[in-house]
């Protein structure tokens, strides 16, 4: 009779990591100061200061410890945040994460098991959306200008 096949050990749960193509700050990094990003950002280290990702998504990884004020289009919290958060579109506070601070957002999702202390202000997306930076605004105006000069066809 053939020997039974050895059972492979159960796979270890993978450490959550930054999605590919996203700017990332790893768990052993400590930053004090101001972070500004024009692309999606994944923070898994210790940050003290301000974090601005006005037009993209900010993810605070499970090892992330932020003592910072945050402004982003979208915020996902898996780690720990102490500071006020302004998320233009939405904030997602996942289980086992901790957020102490006041939130202003268009939409909020709080999973069971998340710890939150602070106030929640739901604001209309237009009001909550962080102001668009000057460069894209200029581009919009430039794109619109030629249309203004087009004369209506008879």
């Amino acid at each position, binding site marked *: 009779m053939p020997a039974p096949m050895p059972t492979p050990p159960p796979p270890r749960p993978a450490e959550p990591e930054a999605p590919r193509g996203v700017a990332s700050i790893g768990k052993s990094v400590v930053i004090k100061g101001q972070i500004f990003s024009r692309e999606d950002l994944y923070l898994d280290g210790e940050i003290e200061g301000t974090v601005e990702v006005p037009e993209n998504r900010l993810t605070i990884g499970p090892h992330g410890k932020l003592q910072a004020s945050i402004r982003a289009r979208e915020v996902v919290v898996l780690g720990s945040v102490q500071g006020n958060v302004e998320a233009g579109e939405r904030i997602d506070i996942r289980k086992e994460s901790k957020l102490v601070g006041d939130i202003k957002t268009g939409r909020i999702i709080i*999973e069971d098991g*998340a710890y*939150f202390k602070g106030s*929640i202000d739901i604001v209309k997306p237009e009001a909550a959306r962080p102001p668009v930076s000057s460069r894209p605004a200029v581009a919009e105006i430039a794109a619109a200008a030629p249309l203004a000069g087009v004369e209506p066809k008879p």
Partner: protein
Amino acid sequence: MSVFARDSHDEAGRQQPYSRHSNGLEQFFGYIQGEHGLTLLDLSGASQASVGLITGLGHRLYSEDLLQTLDELFGRGDFYANQCDPERIERLLAQSLNLPEASCDGALVWDLLEYLASPLLQAVVDRLRRIVKPRAYLLAIFHGDERAERVPTYTYRICDARTLSLAPRGLRQPAQLFNNRAIEKLFQGFEAVKFFLTRDHLREVIVKR
């Protein structure tokens, strides 16, 4: 027999949240009906249900799980003896309920007051009185069985303006259990106290600041 008002468990034996009608909650939301942009204080911690309902009505929510904060501050050693330490009381009031005077248009206190020993209880009630606007309302819940040694604790989630979902958090020894007279005495600095008796041995109380 379980001391929990409802006794539903999942397959692993964990107690499940259950929903119940709440006259006190209905009255609380009745008082603020038609209002917009109020600031409401919820001391049972943030849940998707409560946040969704309160912000959906156009109000601002201040949320804190005060029971968890109490455990963190007073939990090492004798929970209730620690609550008599003036320094720790100061520390609690510095980090919790630290809101501007008359900044809240209503407060959902739930059953928290039963887990506060005398000096802290008075300090918290005084703080609530300070941060809640005059003529605003508080909703508190007290257990009806005044002789129980341990009572079930819950996380209170608001499903709609008249329905609560109670998620069990285990049994806990209360600092004290209150009869109606003791509740009236506790809120003697407030304008009015109204009681709602329920079928599950909870006493819901609406207090007018």
